[in-house]
């Protein structure tokens, strides 16, 4: 079997670079490609919202009480919400916020997790034991009190300038910080496990024997070889963060109005589910489809980055 496997894959790889192979494999994963395209379109739309807003001649935050709960019309393609605001544009802004929170929080978690995981995995011993117990602690940490404490912190006391604290987006940053503070554990564990195995690889030994220091080994030899699980985990966690944001909104700890996020739009619409189900349908569907798309993309990436496939 090994022999056959060998004979099968090695020549097939011959002329290809790692990336072309990666894209080839990803391309075979049709759902992942579809998801990537969907997310790209969504991203472009979300971040072009101000332009779309201008073209449609609507204002996402303009309350117009005479136009509440209107059905789709030429002026409002998807109709209006409970405050007479254009639903489409709010959904797009919500997407901007949800994607931003998701991506930034996932990135921040990934960075923290990678650093912790690399240190624990590469140095091992007491540092590893300490960092892993820390990770366990964070996992076991009750999220709720933490969220409430963080939501109540007086940020000026932390030395943040007034302009930051007064920023209308502060609730958004809070969410990102909170999620980053607790969300890094998965990546840390993955990276540690991967680093533990990569650490034993001969090429790491070779670099050590050549005199490379810990920093260089971690940066040049371990990190690039554990990047796949990081990318996969981060992709999946973008979806999770978007879901988590909606749950936080449900608990009243999410992003505060008038900033729209899919989470708070869905939570707000929940109570109107009987009279205006479409208000809940759109953000609910968008969350669902986006999260599922991130999951598919992550799945596709996982397949495409399968080290077995690359190593041959």
């Amino acid at each position, binding site marked *: 079997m090994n022999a056959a496997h060998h004979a099968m894959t*090695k020549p097939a*790889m*011959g*002329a*290809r*670079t*790692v990336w072309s192979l990666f894209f080839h494999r990803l391309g075979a994963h049709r759902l992942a490609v579809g998801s990537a395209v969907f997310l790209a379109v969504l991203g472009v739309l979300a971040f072009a919202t101000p332009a779309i807003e201008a073209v449609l001649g609507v204002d996402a935050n303009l309350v117009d009480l005479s136009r509440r709960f209107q059905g789709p019309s030429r002026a409002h393609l998807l109709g209006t919400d409970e405050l007479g605001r254009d639903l489409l544009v709010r959904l797009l802004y919500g997407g901007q916020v949800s994607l931003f929170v998701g991506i930034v929080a996932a990135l921040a978690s990934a960075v923290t997790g990678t650093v912790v995981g690399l240190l624990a995995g590469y140095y091992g011993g007491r540092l590893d*034991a300490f960092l892993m*117990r820390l990770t366990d602690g964070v996992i076991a940490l009750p999220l709720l009190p933490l969220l409430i404490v963080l939501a109540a912190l007086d940020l000026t006391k932390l030395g943040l300038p007034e302009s930051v604290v007064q920023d209308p987006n502060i609730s958004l940053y809070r969410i990102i910080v909170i999620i980053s503070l607790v969300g890094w554990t998965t990546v840390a564990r993955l990276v540690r496990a991967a680093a533990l195995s990569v650490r034993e*690889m*001969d*090429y790491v*030994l*070779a*670099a*050590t*024997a*050549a*005199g*490379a*220091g810990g920093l*260089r080994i971690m940066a*040049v*030899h371990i990190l*690039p*070889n554990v990047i796949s699980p990081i990318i996969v985990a981060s992709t999946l966690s973008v979806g999770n963060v978007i879901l988590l944001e909606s749950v936080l909104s449900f608990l009243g700890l999410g992003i505060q109005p008038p900033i729209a996020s899919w989470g708070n739009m869905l939570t707000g619409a929940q109570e109107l589910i009987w009279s205006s189900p479409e208000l809940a349908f759109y953000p609910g569907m968008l969350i669902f489809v986006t999260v599922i798309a991130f999951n598919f993309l992550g799945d596709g990436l996982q397949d495409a980055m399968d080290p077995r496939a*690359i*190593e*041959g």
Partner: protein
Amino acid sequence: MSAAVSQGTAPLLEVRDLVKHFAIGGQGLFARSLGRVHALNGVSFAIGPGETLALVGESGCGKTTTARVIARLYRPDSGSVLFKGTDLAMLKGRKLKSARRALQMVFQDPYGSLNPRLPVSAIIGEPLVIHRLGTATERHHRVETMMVQVGLNPRDADHYPHQFSGGQRQRIAIARALVLEPELIIADEPLSALDVSIQSQILNLLKDIQEDRGLAFLFITHDLAVVDYFADRVAVMYLGHIVEIAPRAALFSTPRHPYSLALIDAIPVPGGGKRRLGTATAGDVPNPASPPSGCPFHPRCARATEVCRETMPALAGVPNQAEHQVACHHPLEDGALEGGAGPATGAPRQ
């Protein structure tokens, strides 16, 4: 025990009484280690400049550990590694880095020893970067030269390891080891992962390099046929001990340790006819976590007596052959190889 050095010149590398144990188990903050594996139990030998010493033994005998302790991938529990007069075992940080510049390693698995995310040029050039040698252009040039020397096409410098065959990869690994112009190369089973038809190519390459540059080699292998072809001297290891060390010819013509004989005996010879039943050495290699008392080979040895069970024999010179040392209470006499009186059919004693 002192190591015998061939030719009487100052050794390039001298290893003295290396001891290395590994703890087993023991995870968690409060867990204690549950036992120790005695990987090395006082290993001593020396390698002269330009000399090739082969370290032979079966899995678990400690040959790889020896290599890694010398390369300071592991820190020994005790003993010293004198390389060009400096004790590597004691060094740290920058001093260690510069001290071991002249000592490089080649690993067994050419698939695992090359970072799959780096192009070949970066792999070969890395030691230069680490030691901050030359400008980028100079390094580039040097890498190309090295590639030519090991028989690779410099145009492939931007390719990644997976685009090469096993043999080519091992050439890359050799180029990486050579780029710093070392005086000693530790080659840990450099052939065993390669196809048969490729092994000879790499073996020739190593031999050419050795001859061109006058390099010393610590050549680790389990294949005695390769040893016969490549080594100047041979050290046979068993369970963390060197049981016999001798010039190549002496070892193969007149092995003194029953284990050495067992190894030579076990090598299948192509075209040598069917195996004679009952000639294989009985018994398993013992678990290094619980080594037998006395001579580690005694449970498998037909010549073992009470003293073997109790006392570990010291490595001592064979009469009239100062360079031939053996650690055995009952060393073999001349002609054991032909006589077939070997250790052969010792019943398993467990």
